[in-house]
């Protein structure tokens, strides 16, 4: 019985810690053409749209979007941008986690939150040429 229960308990605890569908943040404001790609589906942005790990946020030529994350990190994504929310884990009780964002192209303004404070380079931003470690707080990354 123990052999049977241990993997079940382990799987249950892993699901509780990091459900694949968990909310990581929300779209707060947007202007112009902004969409969120999740797998093969694409959704138009709207205030309150719930974001998940792995979502790709795209803005058109005149598009902009503001996003607030569960650890109080805030993003402003500028026009003609493609940004992937690659990794986000956050333990709200301990206020620790890790956060990786990929800027494929365009511009990203960031005010970092609790994850960046929780450990050295717990928050990172990847660009096509570089990896950035975020230690706080307000900065802009631009990829041409």
């Amino acid at each position, binding site marked *: 019985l123990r052999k049977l229960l241990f993997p079940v308990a382990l799987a249950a605890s892993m699901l509780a810690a990091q459900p694949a569908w968990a909310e990581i943040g929300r779209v*707060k404001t947007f202007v112009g053409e902004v969409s969120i790609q999740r797998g093969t589906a694409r959704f138009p942005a709207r205030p309150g749209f719930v974001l998940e790990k792995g979502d790709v946020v795209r803005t058109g030529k005149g598009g*902009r979007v503001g996003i*607030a994350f569960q650890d109080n990190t805030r993003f402003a994504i500028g026009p003609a941008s493609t940004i992937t929310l690659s990794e986000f884990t956050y333990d709200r009780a301990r206020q620790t986690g890790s956060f990786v964002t990929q800027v494929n192209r365009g511009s990203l303004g960031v005010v970092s939150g609790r994850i960046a404070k929780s450990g050295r380079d717990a928050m990172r931003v990847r660009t096509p040429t570089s990896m950035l470690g975020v230690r706080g707080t307000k900065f802009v990354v631009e990829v041409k």
Partner: protein
Amino acid sequence: VRALLLPLGAALALAGCAKDRVTLLDNEDPGEQFAVADITDPAKERVLDAQLTELALGSKSRPRTLSKVRKSDVSLIGSLPPKAREFQIVFPIGSSRIPQDQRGRLEEIRNELAIRPGAQIEVAGFTDSLGDETLNNGISLERARGVADELRQFGFAVAADDVIGRGEYDARAALGDEKTDDKFRRAVVIVR
């Protein structure tokens, strides 16, 4: 030769301007660490740790200082959502009933939510470190649930996952065990 080199030099300069970049603006949390580092090669970190400094990415150049924030960055930062706001509701010892003198806080939260479309509401309950830890875990969750229910009655959505009891952990870390203090007997509502 000069006629050939001049346009080539100009083209190279323009190509240099078109490099990817990271620009450190300012610190929203004075007292906390303020830096961004290029850690692509961990043995050769390049660190920005001063206001208005910039690094060209994908190059080995040193950080440079800007005299002012770029117009495009001012406009981008203007699109940031507002900072999360926190509200605290204080409870009497051992109780999870919202006291009458704290109900004004609920009105403040309601007003804040009215100007934040699509807001996420997180409610965390706490206790001081007096009494049994298991009991305190229960009281902290009851405090959070009570506040969340009030906000739902106003018509706001509060997800079950966003209502958490954090027990006496914070109080014990700050005061030690078996201490009482109002400021830990609370529910914190975060609106973001």
